[in-house]
C-alpha cells in the first residue's frame, strides 16, 4: 500500500514539494538579506550617533523596507499553496479511481477498502502536515522583526503551526469533493470551495474569543493610527471616553484636543482633557490560543470529512 500510494501520487507530491522548496528558499534568502541589512541599520543607529545618515545606512534602510514588503507579498501568495494540495493530492484520490474504473481493480485486491483509504489519507495527510509545518516555520522565521502574524490576515494562516492544519484540511476537502466522481469537476470545485472557506475563516477569526477591553491614560496610550497587528496584540478599535463616559471617535477626540500638530489625540491632550483611550483588542498572549482554535476547527472539519469519505468508500461508493 505504501508503494501504491507513492506510485500513484509521486508526481503530485514532488510537484508540491518543489513549489514549497522554492517558496521557502526565497523566504530564507530574503530573510537573510533583511537580517544583514538590519544589522547594518543597527550599526548606523548605535555608531554614528547624531550624525547625518550615511548613504550606506540609507540604502540598508530601503533594503529592509523593500525586502519586507516583497516578502509579505509572497507570503500573501503562499496562502494559495494549500489549494494545490486540495486540487492535486485530494481531488483525484477517489475521483480518478471512479473515473478510470480502476476502483474495480483496487477494491478486489486483498486489501480492505478501509485500510486502502487509511493508508492513502494517512500518508498524504502526513506529507501535507509536514510541508505545512515547514512553511509555517520558515514564514514565522522570515517575518521576525517585520510583521506580527497575530491580527494580520495575510500572515496568521501562514505562520507557526496553523498551516499544518490548513494543508490537511485542504487535502480532505479535495478528497471529499472527489466523491463527485469527475476529476476535473472535483478539482474545479476544490479551487472554488477552499478560498471560500478561507475567506469564511477570515470573518470568523476575530470572534474565536470575546475581545478584551482596556481603558488607558496618556502614558500607556497607542499613538497615531494603530495597525491591527500591533505588538500589544490584535487591535479592533481605538476610541476615547470623556469624563462622563461618553465614547468619542478618534477624530472627535482630535477635535476636543484642538491640537493642530496632530490628527490623533496626543498623550499630553489626554492628560490635559482627562480623556481616556479605550482599546478593544486580543492581547498578544492569546496568539497561541487563536492558533489552537483555528487548528481545532480545521482538523475537526478534516476529521469529519474523513469519516464521510470512509463511510462512502466502505459501503456506498457505487
Amino acid at each position, binding site marked *: 500500500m505504501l508503494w501504491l500510494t507513492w*506510485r500513484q501520487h509521486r508526481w503530485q507530491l514532488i510537484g508540491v514539494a518543489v513549489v514549497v522548496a522554492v517558496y521557502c528558499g526565497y523566504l530564507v534568502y530574503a530573510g537573510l538579506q533583511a537580517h544583514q541589512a538590519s544589522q547594518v541599520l543597527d550599526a548606523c543607529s548605535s555608531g554614528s550617533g547624531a550624525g547625518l545618515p550615511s548613504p550606506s545606512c540609507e540604502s540598508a534602510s530601503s533594503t529592509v523596507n523593500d525586502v519586507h514588503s516583497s516578502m509579505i507579498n509572497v507570503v500573501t501568495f503562499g496562502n494559495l499553496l494549500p489549494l494545490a494540495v486540495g486540487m492535486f493530492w485530494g481531488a483525484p484520490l477517489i475521483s480518478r479511481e471512479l473515473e*478510470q474504473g480502476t476502483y*474495480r481493480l483496487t477494491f*478486489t*485486491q486483498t486489501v480492505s477498502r478501509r485500510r486502502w483509504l487509511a493508508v492513502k489519507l494517512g500518508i498524504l495527510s502526513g506529507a501535507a502536515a509536514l510541508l505545512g509545518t515547514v512553511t509555517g516555520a520558515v514564514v514565522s522565521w522570515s517575518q521576525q522583526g517585520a510583521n506580527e502574524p497575530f491580527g494580520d490576515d495575510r500572515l496568521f494562516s501562514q505562520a507557526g503551526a496553523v498551516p499544518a492544519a490548513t494543508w490537511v484540511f485542504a487535502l480532505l476537502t479535495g478528497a471529499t469533493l472527489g466523491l463527485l466522481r469527475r476529476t476535473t469537476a472535483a478539482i474545479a470545485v476544490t479551487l472554488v470551495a477552499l478560498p471560500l472557506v478561507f475567506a469564511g475563516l477570515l470573518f470568523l477569526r476575530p470572534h474565536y474569543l470575546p475581545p478584551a477591553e482596556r481603558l488607558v491614560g496618556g502614558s500607556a496610550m497607542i499613538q497615531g493610527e494603530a495597525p491591527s497587528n500591533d505588538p500589544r496584540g490584535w487591535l479592533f478599535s481605538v476610541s476615547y471616553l470623556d469624563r462622563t463616559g461618553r465614547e468619542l471617535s478618534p477624530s472627535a477626540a482630535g477635535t476636543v484636543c484642538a491640537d493642530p500638530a496632530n490628527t490623533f489625540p496626543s498623550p499630553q491632550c489626554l492628560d490635559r482633557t482627562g480623556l481616556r483611550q479605550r482599546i478593544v483588542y486580543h492581547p498578544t498572549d492569546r496568539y497561541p490560543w487563536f492558533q489552537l482554535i483555528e487548528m481545532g476547527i480545521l482538523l475537526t472539519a478534516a476529521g469529519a470529512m474523513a469519516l464521510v469519505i470512509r463511510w462512502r468508500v466502505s459501503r456506498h461508493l457505487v
Partner: protein
Amino acid sequence: MTPAIESRDLGRRYRRTWALRGCTLALPEGRVIALVGPNGAGKSTLLNLAAGLLQPSEGTLRIFGEPLDDRPAALARISYMAQETALYPTFTVAELLTFGRRLNPGWDDRWARERLSRLRLPSDVPAGRLSGGQRAQVALVLALAKRPRLLLLDEPLASLDPVARHDVMALLMESVAEAGMTVVLSSHIISDLVDTCDWLVTINQGRVQVSGDIDELLATHRLLTGPREALDSLPPRLPVVAHTVNGRQASVLARIGAHRLAPVWTVNEVSLDELVLCYLRQPASSALPGPTSVR
C-alpha cells in the same frame, strides 16, 4: 458441497430501476459458469455484487457459504476482471505486477512473471499503450496470480479480436486445468462459451431463467417439429420453453424428460446457441422451473 455463489432474492436497484431482482441461485464450485443474457440484463450487476463492488439493495448473497464483506480473508478468495479491463493506464506491466504482489499475500509472482514472458508482453510499456488483447491478458494474469478460489469475469472477451479471444480463453482454461478454481464468465456472445463453459445461467430482464449443467440441459431439451394441429396433442405437463408456428408447421423447444410424444413429431437435439436463444427470446419462460440442482 457448499456452493461457490449462493443468492436468495438478491436485488439491486439504481434509483428507481431494478438492474437485478429476485435472483435466487446456487452455483457449484469447480465449474466454468457461463452467465448469458442480453445487454443490460443484469449480468454485470450480479458479477459486481459477487465481487463485493456493489451492495445488494435486497436479498442475501453468500460466497463459499460466507456472507460477503470487506475483510482481507474474504477479498483474497475472489478475483474480478472488468469489462473494460480497467488497469492503471500509467502503470507499466512490471508495475502492475508489483501492485499485485504488494496488495495480495497469496500472490504467485513466479507464475505471473513466467506467464507474462510466455505471452511476450513487454514489461516496461504502460498499460495505456497496450493493445486491447494485451490489456486483457495482463488483467487476467493479475486476476489469476492472486490465486483466487472464485474468478469473476465480466465480458472479458468484448472488444477483442479473434486471436486475442482465443489467447485469453486458452490462458483461462489452462489456469482452470492447473488450479481448478470456479469461474463465472459473462458474455452475450454464445459461441465464446461453447466448449469452455460447463454450467449455464441465463439472465433476462433482471431475472434468472436457467441455471444448470450444460450437458444435462442439452440432454433434456429437444427441438420438436410437426404439424401445427399436433400442438394440442402435446402432453399437458410437457415443459415448453418456446414454440413457433410457421404455416402448417410448428416448432417447439421443450424439456422433454420422460414424456412420450406422438410419432408425428420429429425430435432433434438442440445446440447451446439454439437453447440460449430460445430462452432469451422468451423472458416469460423464467416462470419455468429451470434445473437448478447443484451437483
